[in-house]
């Protein structure tokens, strides 16, 4: 028979009473043991603001999820990490997800993250040097443009802008220059127009408003209320972990609701600044914010897919319904 000392028994009784309703919280270690660990890839940019809020406000913990964040560059590496099981859920652009679907990767979008509103609330824009004479797509003939990633949404929308404003994008020379370097490329005259987005857009206007100007909205203007980024998981992971995925989406979407209603709230600014390292004053000076979306209508993805196919960024029209898991449909 296992002996138990009086002192130990008293201790156990005390602990039991404490947990039995005397208002004492369970120790952290005990609480953590009931949590489901989830590794999530997040691109540390403004678009992920709602995710940062959900983290800050412990919405994931409330769903008994212990989310560890892995900053990722988005795009191909994130999708590769999902398929390899290195990440359970990852953020990326919907264009990457549409391309990955056509490449045969087993992926599903589980929630929307960000979208873009039409001009003047579009958080992406076409920016030029003042006095360059570029106002519309007709004016970019023989000029060089820059886009963050070729074959991605800003590039597709830049071509849409050129074609819809009197130009011919098939003859346009658009090179790849990443967002942080676009301002320098434009100021030095190496390129003539850039497809920029926040926070680089407001940063350029604030620092060089005398030399640079916005001539058009971009993503939300060319494809009104378009979806920019989303969370995806592999089909295999979702099949085995439906409850976990649904709990993650519930928590994230609670954060999205809060972020949508409080985009300029100091708590929001602080939370984004903490995760992205962006100076808070830069966030307070944003011209436009992303739309923190929760769900995605298949028609929205269809429109993006059609534009991508038109410019050769997709081989075929996408199977939008097949790409959206029920939690993303709302």
């Amino acid at each position, binding site marked *: 028979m296992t002996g138990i000392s009086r002192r130990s028994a008293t201790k156990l009784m005390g602990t039991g009473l404490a947990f039995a309703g005397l208002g004492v919280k369970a120790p952290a270690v005990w609480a953590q043991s009931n949590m489901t660990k989830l590794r999530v*890839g997040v691109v540390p940019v403004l678009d992920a603001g709602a995710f940062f809020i959900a983290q800050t406000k412990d919405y994931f913990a409330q769903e008994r999820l212990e989310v560890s*964040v*892995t900053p990722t560059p988005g795009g*191909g*590496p994130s999708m*590769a990490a999902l398929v390899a099981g290195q990440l359970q859920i990852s953020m990326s652009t919907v264009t990457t997800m549409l391309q990955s679907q056509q490449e045969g990767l087993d992926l599903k979008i589980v929630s929307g993250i960000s979208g873009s509103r039409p001009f003047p609330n579009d958080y992406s824009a076409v920016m030029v040097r003042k006095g360059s004479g570029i106002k519309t797509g007709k004016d970019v003939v023989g000029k060089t443009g820059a886009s963050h990633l070729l074959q991605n949404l800003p590039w597709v929308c830049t071509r849409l802008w050129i074609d819809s404003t009197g130009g011919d994008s098939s003859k346009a020379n658009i090179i790849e220059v990443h*967002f*942080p370097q676009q301002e320098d490329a434009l100021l030095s005259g190496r390129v003539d127009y850039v497809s920029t987005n926040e926070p680089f857009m407001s940063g350029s206007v604030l*620092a060089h408003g005398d030399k640079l100007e916005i001539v058009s909205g971009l993503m939300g203007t060319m494809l009104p209320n378009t979806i920019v980024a989303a969370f995806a998981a592999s089909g295999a992971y979702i099949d085995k972990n439906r409850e976990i995925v649904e709990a993650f989406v519930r928590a994230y979407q609670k954060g999205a609701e809060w972020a949508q209603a409080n985009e300029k709230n100091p708590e929001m600014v602080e939370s984004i600044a903490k995760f992205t390292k962006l*100076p808070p004053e830069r966030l307070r000076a944003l011209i436009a914010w992303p739309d923190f979306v929760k769900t995605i209508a298949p028609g929205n993805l269809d429109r993006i897919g059609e534009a991508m196919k038109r410019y050769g960024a997709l081989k075929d029209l996408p199977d939008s319904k097949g790409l959206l898991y029920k939690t993303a449909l709302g």
Partner: protein
Amino acid sequence: MQIQSAKNSKGSGLADLRKAIRLAFGGPRLGLWFIITLLMLWELSARTGLVTSSNWPPVSAVLVATVRDLGKGELAGALGGTLYRMAVGFVLGAAAGIVLGVLLSVSRLTRAALEPTIELLRPLPIPALIPPLILFLGLDNPMKIAVVAFTVFFPVFVNTLYGALAIEPTYRAVAATFGTSWLDTLRSVLLPATLPYVFAGLRVSLGLAFVSVVAAEMVAGDSGIGYYITSMQYAGRGADMFAALFLLGLSGYLLNRAFVFFEGRLLFWHRQSG
């Protein structure tokens, strides 16, 4: 007489001036002055508006950011992580390079079997391999360490192999005549004669290892100086980004100096004989 004295005094003045110039700018000090001049030009270009860019802060702001970020511990932690990954990858890659280099030098069969594969893999640019490596090794340390090991392996392997093949056949023949065992031949003939080549490979690899680990951190992960540089770039914090670059350059320089120092100590006999 007075003229002669004046001439002498003028001559001695000129000699003093020359001496003073030599003292201030001679030898390694010239390199230091060159760096100071470049930094001053950088400061001027940023302060006077000669270069107008949010990504081009004055060098004084970079120095302030370096001290501040080091003080907070974030930058030192990032550098520490990078050096750790680099060190592990370096040791693994170098060990594999030396072992395979020696093995292929003594076995024609192994050389015939492995050399084509190695020569096919050698020209591959390591940044292009990072995405497929993520698929197999993930986003964390194993992937980054593998990237470094892969980078270090080739220069060390090639130098070891050709160093071992370049050994005078007489040395091996003498060892064979005295009935020296394979292990003793390796220890007393092959390795000492190959070591200068191995060290040349290791020195080339050191710089490449630094570049590759930072490149891997810039593509994926949540730590290290490469990740720090990328996140500062995207946050529009130019001074903090340059602080990391400055520290990276300084670390590379110090690592190279340390390597040269240890190489000199270990291969003193080679220098004396050469």
